[in-house]
């Protein structure tokens, strides 16, 4: 569907040149929700803008459904863009137009007759759940409603690809979730390929099938979301995964417990997919003469399955402890004995 091959983007600045995207290769499948995560300045914004030709790559090719976006120009590029929609962090609605008129705008660009436009706009308003707000102006809407208008506008011309440029970064957590649910719903209902960029792992976890992690213009890690959660390889990926699995206070708590219980073991268990549903802790308590103290736990749902982490403190005889750890390792859960750094 989307093939990005050896794409490089160099910006000329006063002090020299800046490589924003460096030799990136990606293949995105049809109907997939593909996430690109990275901190600001990682090049993800430039990368997504090369998918609809808002930026031209300095080197390499971008191919979407057989169209070479990186080399077409003028009318061909404009025509192609009608099928590659985009939604934005700050919504970018025209304040001078009502909700209906905003949604109608891409249809006007595509030259759709007025009557059909009206019909299509009404369908879209219903699809994104904005019934009754058609005559409101963007200034009268909440952030979440504005993004719904943005989504409706992006879907107007039946696109093949939807690009989401930090689409939820300006929204509060609750609104973020409702917008993400809408995106999943659209993806399932219309079979739309979605490419999104974000700096929030929460967004990746919640809706993406696959994820690419970007740092310094390069893709440093790529894979199924669940696999990346299970075994993050790069340090940056580990940090992103921790955003979701380990709340801020976890580290402090663990540190505190390690000092408190010098004689026991603090263990981090990670559960992926089916193992998350086995009664591992119950079996542990029944089989071993140990005190088990549950410190903290969290289960996150991803598009490819569940992922959970549990911190426990084990207290008992040394050989009993060792056997317990062996038992846990055999039970297809990830085991990590936490020690002082």
């Amino acid at each position, binding site marked *: 569907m989307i093939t990005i091959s050896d794409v490089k983007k160099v910006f000329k600045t006063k002090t020299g040149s800046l490589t924003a995207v460096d030799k990136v290769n990606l293949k995105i499948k049809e109907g997939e929700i593909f996430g690109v995560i990275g901190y600001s300045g990682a090049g993800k914004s430039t990368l997504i803008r090369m998918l*609809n030709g*808002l930026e031209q790559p300095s080197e390499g090719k971008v191919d979407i459904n057989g169209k070479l976006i990186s080399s077409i120009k003028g009318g061909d*590029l*404009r*025509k*192609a*863009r*009608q099928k*590659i*929609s*985009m939604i*934005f962090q*700050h919504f*970018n*609605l*025209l*304040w*001078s*137009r009502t909700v209906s008129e905003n949604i109608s*705008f*891409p249809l*006007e*660009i*595509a030259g759709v007759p007025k009557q059909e436009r009206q019909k299509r706009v009404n369908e879209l308003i219903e699809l994104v759940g904005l019934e009754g707000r058609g005559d409101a*102006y*963007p*200034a009268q809407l909440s952030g979440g409603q504005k993004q719904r208008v943005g989504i409706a*506008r992006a879907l107007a*011309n039946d696109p093949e690809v939807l*690009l989401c440029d930090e689409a939820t970064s300006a929204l509060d957590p609750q609104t973020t979730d409702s917008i993400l649910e809408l995106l999943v719903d659209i993806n399932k209902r219309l079979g739309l390929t979605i490419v999104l960029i974000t700096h929030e792992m929460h967004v990746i976890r919640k809706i993406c099938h696959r994820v690419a992690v970007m740092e310094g213009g390069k893709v440093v890690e790529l894979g199924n979301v669940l696999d990346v959660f299970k075994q993050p390889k790069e340090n940056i990926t580990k940090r992103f995964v921790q955003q979701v699995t380990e709340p801020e206070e976890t580290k402090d708590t663990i540190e505190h417990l390690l000092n408190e219980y010098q004689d026991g073991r603090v263990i981090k268990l990670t559960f992926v997919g089916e193992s998350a549903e086995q009664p591992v802790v119950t079996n542990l308590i029944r089989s071993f003469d140990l005190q088990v103290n549950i410190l903290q736990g969290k289960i996150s749902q991803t598009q490819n399955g569940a992922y959970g982490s549990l911190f426990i403190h084990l207290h008992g005889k040394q050989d009993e402890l060792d056997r317990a750890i062996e038992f846990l390792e055999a039970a297809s859960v990830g085991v990590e004995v936490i020690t002082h750094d």
Partner: protein
Amino acid sequence: MIEQIFPNVEWPMMWEATYETIYMTLISVVITFILGIALGLLLFLTSKGNLWENKIVYAITTAVVNIFRSIPFIILIVLLIPFTRTLLGTIRGADAALPALIIGAAPFYARMVEIALREIDKGVIEAARSMGAKVSTIVFKVLIPESMPALISGITVTAIALVGYTAMAGVIGAGGLGNLAFLDGFQRSRDDVTLAATIIILIIVFIIQFIGDFFTNKLDKR
């Protein structure tokens, strides 16, 4: 009562002068609005980082705008006498004032248009591009509608300046209230004529400001 305050005012002449002032203002405002928006768009589109980025065109347009904006209006009228004569065959009358009024006001307004266009969120232009919009579509469906309140308040300021310019244009025989106040009021020491002309000019200015504010508020949906 009115005759006691304004003993020397010949009202038919006063009304004719009012008509001339309104005529000159109205025509020049309409043409300045169109010309100024065209020039302002050219300045905006050819400036750095915009759709038609072009250093040479931008530099030339900027230079022309700056030159005509800097020449004092009274001097501009005199400088334009040969031009007006070739264009209209005469340098007398309200029509003869129009070239100077427009050439004086359009560059001034063009700068205001450029500022108004710069105020538009870049993201909105990017969004229109991402939908596959042509430059002409962006101009007529994004740039102009999105900056309309600022364009209207800009033309209001320009229109009020133009009322002042018409008074100066009276010097070259364009007629209007300025001419009447100068010839009939000042030179013949009839202060009441000057006062009456001033009051009418003030009323015209207030009306322009009122209309301008009304439309600016009505169009602003932010």
